[in-house]
């Protein structure tokens, strides 16, 4: 018996199709051995018209499609930057509203401030002292050797306080406290606790991101000043001990202070503040945007590289201005 090419199943198949006609456009497998038999149309057939459609698309439709593809690509590439800008504005805006400063937010702010500024005090002071030994004393020695001892103050302000201190303090904060924040918030996000917090009306942005970012900001300023003082003082002590300097500590600090321009009094604290703020924000946002597939193995390296990028970008942007 030859089969009708229009109706390979024969007359029985034709009559059953007439009794229960398939919906228009549906491609249901007739073969009972097919894995998707009885399960409706397989996913691949849901968009069967897509290929035909793209072939028939007009030039303007193709251009719109290209623009959409380009937009998606750009958004994917600058996704984190856009989130950072949004949350930056959110933190500034929310921090100005008294209603945001509830006792839970204040508690989190105090705890984070204690951890970041209090906990990082010693390590910052030690790093500052080591920098003083390594850099300040060398600078003083070689400037004296070159007969440019009068420029000691301005060189130290430029190199140590304005350039080196924000970078090293940012890296210290990132490694010591930022990674901890990222891990904590990331674990809460991937573990589902953030969702549970939202179910209780506890906004993770208000409860975690806002206070932590502002605590990092305050800590950035505090640790930056401590770092600068520690490095300059240690540098002075080493230089005095080695005989490169003969003036008093106050005189040394006076040289440093008069070497600072009025703009330095604004920009140096601003740099510390901005580095602290963005390191805190970057770590919190990286943790909060972790996906279910993320683990410590993926979150920490990503967060660290983002943090380093933030520190260096801030430093470069401020240096460009100067």
């Amino acid at each position: 018996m030859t089969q009708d090419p229009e109706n390979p199943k024969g007359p029985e198949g034709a009559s059953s199709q007439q009794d229960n006609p398939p919906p228009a456009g549906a491609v249901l497998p007739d073969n009972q051995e097919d894995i998707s038999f009885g399960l409706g149309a397989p996913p691949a057939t849901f968009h069967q018209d897509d290929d035909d459609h793209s072939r028939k698309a007009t030039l303007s439709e193709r251009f719109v499609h290209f623009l959409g593809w380009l937009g998606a690509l750009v958004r994917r590439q600058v996704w984190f930057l856009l989130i950072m800008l949004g949350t930056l504005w959110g933190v500034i805006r929310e921090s100005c509203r008294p209603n945001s400063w509830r006792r839970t937010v204040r508690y989190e702010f105090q705890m984070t401030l204690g951890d970041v500024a209090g906990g990082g005090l010693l390590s910052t002071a030690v790093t500052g002292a080591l920098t003083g030994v390594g850099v300040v004393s060398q600078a003083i020695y070689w400037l004296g050797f070159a007969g440019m001892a009068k420029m000691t103050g301005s060189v130290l302000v430029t190199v140590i306080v304005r350039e080196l201190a924000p970078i090293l303090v940012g890296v210290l904060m990132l490694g010591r406290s930022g990674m901890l924040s990222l891990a904590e918030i990331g674990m809460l996000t991937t573990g589902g606790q953030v969702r549970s917090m939202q179910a209780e009306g506890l906004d993770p942005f208000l409860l975690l991101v806002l206070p932590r970012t502002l605590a990092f900001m305050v800590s950035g300023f505090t640790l930056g000043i401590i770092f600068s003082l520690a490095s300059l003082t240690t540098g002075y002590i080493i230089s005095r001990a080695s005989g490169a300097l003969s003036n008093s500590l106050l005189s040394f600090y006076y040289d440093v202070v008069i070497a600072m321009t009025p703009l330095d009094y604004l920009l140096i604290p601003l740099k510390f503040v901005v580095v602290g703020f963005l390191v805190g924000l970057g770590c919190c946002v990286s943790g909060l945007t972790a996906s279910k597939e993320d683990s410590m193995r993926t979150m920490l390296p990503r967060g660290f590289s983002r943090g380093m990028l933030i520190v260096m970008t801030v430093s470069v942007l401020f240096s460009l201005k100067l």
Partner: protein
Amino acid sequence: MSDTGTTSVNRLAGPMLELADATPVFDESGMPPTPLTLRLMPGECVIVETRDMTRATVFADLCSGMIHLLKGNVRFMGLDWTELNDRRRNALRGRIGRITRRAIWSNLFGTHVAMMLKQLHHTTIPLETVTTDTEHLCERFGLPGIPTDVPGRLSEADIVRAACVRAFLGKPQLLLLEDPLETSPVDLSQPFLESLTEARDRGASAIWFVRDPTVWQRYRQAINGQWRLADDGLMTIRMR
């Protein structure tokens, strides 16, 4: 929420919770997009049987306005979740007490802070009052006092007790309770039912999600309805 913590909750004239053809978005919830209809008056308690507690969690999320809808709406205390801004939505969620199978404890705070966090965040009730209320509930559920260790150091039984305290603390007006009795290593039925009755007397409504129908039999006289949550939606069950 009341600032004093002692003010009695005004009873609503309308339903406390109302789902009107609420059809969840499948991609977000994993629930089939079937319309769900439920009406819960103040003081009522309904049982929702489900084989899958994950589905109960998602349904509780839906009641809390955390799931987007294809159509229909969900109203709590007469307010449509979709018509509220973030702040008001969060404030309203502060009036819901939940026991959930989803992870709620983290070692970020001590258990005492985690238990009282919602109260401390949403209200200005003095800390002493919140502490006294927490202590009272802790004693009721068999804890020797307010646990101050991080949750990771508590025993499984104490975690279930703490979860009950957390749900009933602050006189919530809606209770979404994913049955804590079935998995509890200790018998908490007495304090649990006491707290539930007390909340209902105050005007709170409750949805009690259960997997094992024997769990709630002691309380069957006080139940207002029995439902089953399945693939094809929410179906009422005739109570025998």
